[in-house]
């Protein structure tokens, strides 16, 4: 094995994996993990740590793997990150820790994410849970059980607060449960990782919609002394083109929720149905679009298209996901913009009318603006369309909490470092503040807010 490259990740063969929902990447074994850990040069001033939103002591946890001391390694990891089995799988390490790795200047960076995943998986198999702890401090309410809320709750529990998480769905996890597919993040791992977090003494209340069942104001009336809002960005955007309400058109949120949370891929044994066409177009090119496209393929679609108005270079999805999608036969229709969804007399999708695009001058985001090529309309024959062009914050909390300041897009306005909002004692973080971002950024925001909440409650006396 060359020392210049990362040890490759064993994966399920393509022909097999497109027929199942099992995890694609299989993880390192002990020998490979130790060998990869030895590629780390143990920098005195490690730059990788700066790239990690929760500041994991990366060289130290890797050093312990190199020594074969996995138990110490996981302890170091968990002191900064409560959900390592998840982060090791879904973080875009190429834009974070691994981007800054010194080894990566001349060779491939150390596979920090794969090592994090390895040691977290090792712990789940080899270390017995400690059992539920009891906390007795001041009461804090956490709204939403996605990555931001879970992290904030865990940190606060470790500080001794009595934390209750309120979740609208029947299962905790947020996007980890309903959004990211099983083949990328097995739900059993999410459940186990959440359970070990709840064992820190956090109480979980599912089926409670804050803003409907209880309002933020009422939480204070019930004795909670601070509130953290981590309700995410779950409101799907549509394209606002004709035909969008035809049968067979889904938002990616609905498509993925049916499959991941409600297990529609096991229909009719599980009762939630899903309708997948033979030819499916997924509009958008972020991670959600890749997830939806690869899911459609696994549900039996023969041809799956990614339809994206810019070029490959601007695609927001992780390289690894694009690579996996291509391996699995997803067809990329780039510089292509949908203008109308076509349907038959019964109201079912029959096609997607598109127009070719070319790239013009860079816009305010620095990306070259796509411009329609006149007269280049063409029709893609599809019988299913999934819209994955982004999400906004859910309006239920802002709507029911007039004193909470929001931006014109509906995001809650909160201090970048502390998560402090316009309402006394109310903090917010994650996608509901920033708009759709990454799991680890939401976790970082949850962690910072926990520190700020601790300070706030101590000052309050």
């Amino acid at each position, binding site marked *: 094995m060359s020392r210049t490259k990362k040890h490759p990740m064993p994966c399920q063969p393509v022909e097999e994996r497109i027929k199942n929902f099992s995890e694609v990447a299989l993880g390192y074994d002990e020998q490979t993990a130790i060998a990869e850990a030895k590629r780390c040069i143990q920098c005195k001033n490690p730059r990788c740590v700066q790239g990690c939103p929760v500041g994991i002591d990366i060289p130290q946890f890797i050093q312990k793997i190199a020594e074969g001391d996995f138990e110490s390694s996981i302890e170091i990891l968990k002191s900064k990150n409560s959900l390592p089995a998840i982060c090791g799988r879904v973080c875009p390490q190429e834009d974070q820790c691994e981007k800054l790795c010194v080894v990566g200047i001349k060779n491939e960076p150390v596979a920090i994410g794969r090592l994090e995943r390895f040691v977290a998986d090792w712990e789940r198999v080899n270390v017995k849970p400690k059992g539920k702890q009891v906390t007795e401090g001041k009461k804090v309410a956490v709204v939403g059980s996605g990555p931001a809320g879970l992290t904030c709750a865990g940190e606060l529990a470790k500080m001794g607060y009595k934390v209750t998480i309120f979740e609208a769905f029947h299962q905790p996890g947020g996007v980890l449960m309903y959004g990211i597919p099983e083949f990328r993040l097995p739900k059993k791992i999410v459940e186990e990782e959440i359970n070990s977090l709840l064992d820190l003494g956090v109480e979980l209340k599912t089926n409670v919609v804050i803003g*409907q*069942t209880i309002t933020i104001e009422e939480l204070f009336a019930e004795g909670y002394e601070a509130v953290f809002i981590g309700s995410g960005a*779950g409101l*799907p955007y549509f394209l606002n083109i004709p035909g969008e309400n035809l049968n067979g058109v889904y938002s990616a949120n*609905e498509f993925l929720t049916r499959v991941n949370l409600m297990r529609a891929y*096991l*229909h009719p044994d599980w009762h939630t149905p899903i*309708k997948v066409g033979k030819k499916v177009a997924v509009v958008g090119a972020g991670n959600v679009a890749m997830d939806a496209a690869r899911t459609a393929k696994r549900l039996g679609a023969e041809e799956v298209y990614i339809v994206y108005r810019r070029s490959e270079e601007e695609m927001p999805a992780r390289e690894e996901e694009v690579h996996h999608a291509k391996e699995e036969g997803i067809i990329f229709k780039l510089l292509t913009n949908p203008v109308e969804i076509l349907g038959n007399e019964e109201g079912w999708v029959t096609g997607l009318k598109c127009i070719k695009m070319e790239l013009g001058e860079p816009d305010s985001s620095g990306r070259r603006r796509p411009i329609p090529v006149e007269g280049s309309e063409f029709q893609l024959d599809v019988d299913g369309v999934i819209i994955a062009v982004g999400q906004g914050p*859910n309006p239920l909390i802002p709507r029911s909490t007039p004193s909470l300041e929001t931006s014109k897009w509906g995001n809650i306005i909160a201090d970048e470092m502390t998560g402090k909002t316009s309402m006394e004692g109310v903090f917010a973080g994650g996608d509901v503040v920033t708009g759709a971002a990454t799991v680890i950024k939401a976790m970082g925001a949850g962690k910072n807010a926990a520190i700020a909440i601790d300070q706030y409650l101590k000052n309050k006396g």
Partner: protein
Amino acid sequence: MNKILEKKVLAPTLKQIVVNAPLIARKAKAGQFVILRVHERGERFPLTIADYDREKGTITLIFQEVGASTKLLGNLEVGDVILDLVGPLGKATKHPHAKRVVCIGGGVGVAPVYPEAKELYENGVEVISIIGARNKDLLFYVDEMKKVSKELYITTDDGSAGRKGFVTDALKDLILSGMEIDCVIAIGPMPMMKAVSNLTKEYGIYTIVSLNSLMVDGTGMCGGCRVTIGNEVKFACIDGPAFEAHSIDFDEQMRRLRMYQEEEKLVDCKCGEAEKNVEN
């Protein structure tokens, strides 16, 4: 929580349950609904809150067994627990300032129209009600509706009770009799709501209907329940489910309701062996 305290069979496939749900009962308003999941492999589906008792902490649900999920729910007995129950969801119906309102319930739609009629009645509005069913065995809440209505008209498709015909026939009689109607609230099967809407549009009477769209989460995060109103797309679960009727695209809604017709037939509800959740 979620324990079934009372159960009544209103008609062979029409059931009423009273459920212990203090958090929902505390907040419920006319027009709002809940989402339920009966067992681990079950789907999430919406039901309107037909009645509530804030002091006892209970809500009443009335439903027709039309598919696997409603059959599973209908199979639960007093003492059983509904696995997941979340609400109240949706917006409370916004009634216009009105002196006289006609409340129309078709089939199982009588259940959701009852809290509307009751709320109006308690606010001093004159309520005229029309309830309709296929036949007299499927009629329910006759006494309840009577209590909150100045006048109650009954229609059955086969004439086995009240006036033979549809609720629209009774409504047309009222309109032609010269009665001044400020607002009509109609809830029932989509074709019935469409027929009422078409009729009142002709006479320029403000009309509210409550949509029974397909839903998954019921909190605005998927758009499965989307509906075109005028030129706008709305989500029935957070913007509704009640909407002003005359600008709704009813044909689109009826089409969307048929989306999973084939799949629904595949689910074997195993009604004899429903997994029950007993509160510990």
